[in-house]
């Protein structure tokens, strides 16, 4: 259990709903769910959810903190927004799912090996560094995130794709070195740093 996680358990005792309302993006909407399940039925990856959104809301109210935060489920969200537009109570479900995933990730209790979590991190690091996506770097890191051999294998599987992109000039072979990103990187880094400071303060992450 990470210190941060310990701290949160301390602060909120058994009131997981309150914790979610305070720390999770759009978390204060969770209480508005009436368990109709339209979100659960609308998700394109639905069958892959161990706990669909509406059930997660019920679990939050029931105080099932670990089951929720350690779940792979939220990481299945493809951001298709089907749930949002159909919810009769207008819950911003997509964002709540993102928020829960992010929260679990920040607490360091999100499933370590979850590919989406890891891809998301690589992606963000990638853009945070240069301000723009470097697709080659991104894909190479992605392929190798499970280790070198696995990476070669994935790389080979994906080779046709890569070559196709290359042939059609939609992938830059020299991107790793040549890709510049934005000009005023320093400025962006400063801003992001500040943004993290404020967010951590607000969400009680700050040590």
């Amino acid at each position, binding site marked *: 259990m990470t210190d941060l996680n310990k701290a949160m358990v301390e602060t909120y005792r058994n009131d997981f709903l309150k914790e979610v309302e305070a720390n999770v993006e759009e978390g204060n909407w969770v209480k508005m769910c009436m368990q109709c399940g339209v979100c659960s039925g609308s998700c394109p990856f639905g069958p892959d959810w161990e706990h669909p959104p509406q059930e997660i809301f019920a679990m939050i109210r029931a105080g099932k903190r670990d089951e929720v935060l350690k779940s792979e489920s939220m990481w299945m969200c493809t951001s298709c927004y089907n749930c949002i537009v159909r919810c009769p109570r207008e819950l911003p479900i997509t964002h709540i799912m993102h928020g829960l995933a992010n929260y679990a990730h*920040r607490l360091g209790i999100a499933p370590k090996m979850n590919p989406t979590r890891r891809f998301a991190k690589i992606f963000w690091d990638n853009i945070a560094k240069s301000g723009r996506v470097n697709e080659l770097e991104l894909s190479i890191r992605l392929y190798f995130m499970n280790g070198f051999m696995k990476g070669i294998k994935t790389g080979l599987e994906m080779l*046709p794709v890569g070559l196709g992109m290359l042939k059609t000039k939609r992938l830059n072979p020299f991107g790793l070195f040549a890709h510049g990103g934005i000009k005023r990187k320093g400025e962006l880094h400063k801003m992001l740093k500040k943004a993290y400071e404020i967010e951590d303060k607000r969400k009680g992450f700050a040590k």
Partner: protein
Amino acid sequence: MARKEYSFYPGCSSERKASASNYMVSVESMCKTLDVKLNEIPDWNCCGASIGYAEGGELPRHIMNARNIAISEKENPGQDIVATCAACWLGTKETQERITHSGELLADVNEILKEAGLKYEGKQPVRHMVEVLIEDLGYDELAKPVKKPLEGIKIAGYVGCQTNRPFGVLGESFENPKYLDKLTETMGATALDKYEEKVTCCGGALAFSEPDKSYVQIKKIIESAYDHGADMIVTPCPVCQMNVEVYQGQINKKFGTKFNIPVMYYSQLMTVAYGGSAKEAGLDGNIIRATKLEEIAAKK
């Protein structure tokens, strides 16, 4: 002086030698014909995309977009912000909506923007290119420059998610939007009257992290297009375009299908219909070649 000017947010995938570079090429030709001027936002940065949430959280993600908006407001005053990428448009618009509804967020954002001597006002509407085409120009205007109607081409209008939900295009339904079909019809092509997977999710960013699950989605999207006899699929979104086009080989391997259907951008169709060359339409940028379009483009 062009008839319309916009503050343009191209987005990462549109860069030279990036996954949607051909989208960009065709958009430029299309806008030239329509006499629409796009003023790129100087030094714009990534929108964070929807997948940015895990590491980015809230504020940092919003800051990425707030920066772009602020620069746009400073450098391209009085112009609507226009994005061609669905994710860029959604990300930017979402940030704007969120800030308008939260004074606290507005304060935070501006405090942070100070670091770069920027200020967020949020006066510029954030719009997708198709909105510009449909709302500012209108189908009639779009029809006028058509030189080579795309007769005899059957097209599956694949709208996907993010241009459609949660904001969508004015007056269109989330479940059965028609604008893409109208657009292709305007170009003289035939739009499928039935296309069940029109708004099915392609897996988005999870095509990278959860390829197998995404393939199931993509397969549905392509299959339905085939079932209704489409010659090609058209989309307004780079992520959709990429996912639906480039993984066809993988899917064939996995499911023993024989998919080989071109996936185009509306702007490519329009460029060709407006008499542009294959090059101007970025047709050479497609892994699965749209021969029918190339033929028309080749015609004098």
